[in-house]
């Protein structure tokens, strides 16, 4: 089995209103249940907005924390799901379901270690 991260990229900006978001969240919950039943679920969660991020760097001998994300962009990583499946085709299939539900592009990224 292999581990894959499904990285969901979303545009920066306002969150959609509840009447749009709620049905999506419900479907996302269902797909999580399916993944769990298939024993493919490892972990998954959405991120807060990048404005909640803090970056830590080494400056000389000090470690300095600064407010904000590592890079500013039009899109940011909105959430990740980690799955354990047979191969890329299976991972792409699950990713496709996430993409259909959210309408967002999903990056399928293999982990170096086996699942």
């Amino acid at each position, binding site marked *: 089995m292999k581990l894959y991260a499904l990285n969901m990229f979303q545009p920066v900006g306002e969150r959609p209103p509840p009447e749009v978001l709620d049905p999506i969240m419900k479907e996302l919950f269902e797909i999580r249940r399916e993944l769990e039943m298939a024993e493919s679920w490892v972990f998954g969660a959405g991120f807060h907005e990048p404005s909640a991020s803090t970056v830590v760097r080494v400056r000389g001998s000090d470690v300095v924390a600064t407010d904000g994300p590592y890079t500013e962009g039009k899109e940011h990583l909105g959430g990740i799901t980690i799955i354990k499946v047979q191969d890329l*085709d299976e991972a792409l299939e699950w990713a496709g379901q996430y993409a259909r539900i959210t309408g967002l592009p999903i990056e399928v990224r293999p982990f170096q270690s086996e699942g």
Partner: protein
Amino acid sequence: MEVERVFRREHGRAVAVLVREFGDVDVAEEAVQDAFAEAVRRWPVDGTPPSPAGWIITTARRRAIDRLRREAVRGRKQAEAALVAGEAVDEGAVPDERLRLIFTCCHPALAPATRVALTLRLVGGLSTAEIAHAFLVPEATMAQRLVRAKNKIRDAGIPYRVPREADLPGRVGSVLAVLYLVFSEGYRAREGELTRVDLCAEAIRLGRVLAELMPDEPEVMGLLALMLLVHARRDAREVGGELVLLADQDPGLWDRKLMEEGRSIVRRCLRWGRPGPYQIQAAINAVHSEPPTDWRQILALYDQLSAVTPGPVVALNRAVAVAEVEGPAVALGLVDGLEIERFYLFHAVRADLLRRVGRNAEAADAYRAALDLTENEAERRFLRGRIREVTRAGG
């Protein structure tokens, strides 16, 4: 050379079997390469073995096991598994694993150019240098592209199998697109490049393999028929370095055998009644293969093609048929509405229509626009000839 010919033919099958057994494209490819080196040494002395494929696979398998034993860290488990699986192959019955290999090489997770290179390398058995030369890129660039591709297959976990029924149409489409790209590259680049591998012939060879492995896929057969029918006209298309348009070609120079084979596949496709873009294009070329051309039938086929794959290029080709059925003025109206000004054929077709309605000055401009967009010498000579012609005629 005999060894080389046989080897190229059996390369895909050998690599495919070894990938299956060792689970690693790189190990498989290197082992088959070693087996080839051994064949070059031994076959001329010992004679070609009765089952070249079996010989290559047995030899390559031994080499792969040796290599994995040396690289004990990751190898021991795999090498032992392969040893347990049994060293002796029944040399008469080599399993045909090529279909898996083809689907892996043409996986949509790989970039299209990479799919092409990987398919020619692993399934087609072309050397990296040959592929690099065929696509006019430095050998080092091509080698790097192939290494990256093999790494991605391993790291991303691209599976080594035939896709499920549900995914099959899309995935077959990706395989066909790869073969068609190889063929088109060969078609476009034929002139004056005698040292290049004949990519058209390679694409047809791979198309035949695919047709043998998936004989019930109409589009697989459609693409093979299309390539055969187009390839059959290769000697008539260029005479003495001059490009000859289809209408002016000498049918005596067409390859009858390829044409008949192509036509018989088209007839088989028609009986299936599951048309697709490749089958329709093959049918169009089948009609062209029986002069005088029945342009009404061609136009009907282009109508069908526009319905399944709409787009400006199909519309442009359809306009050529319209010119024959309804006249160049009507066709010109269709062509002028298309937005494909970066496409050389757009200007060439438009120029021809302008010439035929007597608007020679505009025709000359359009021929010049076409000239700027092609680097193919035969095409350029043809266009320069036409420019002289319309300039002399004036108007």
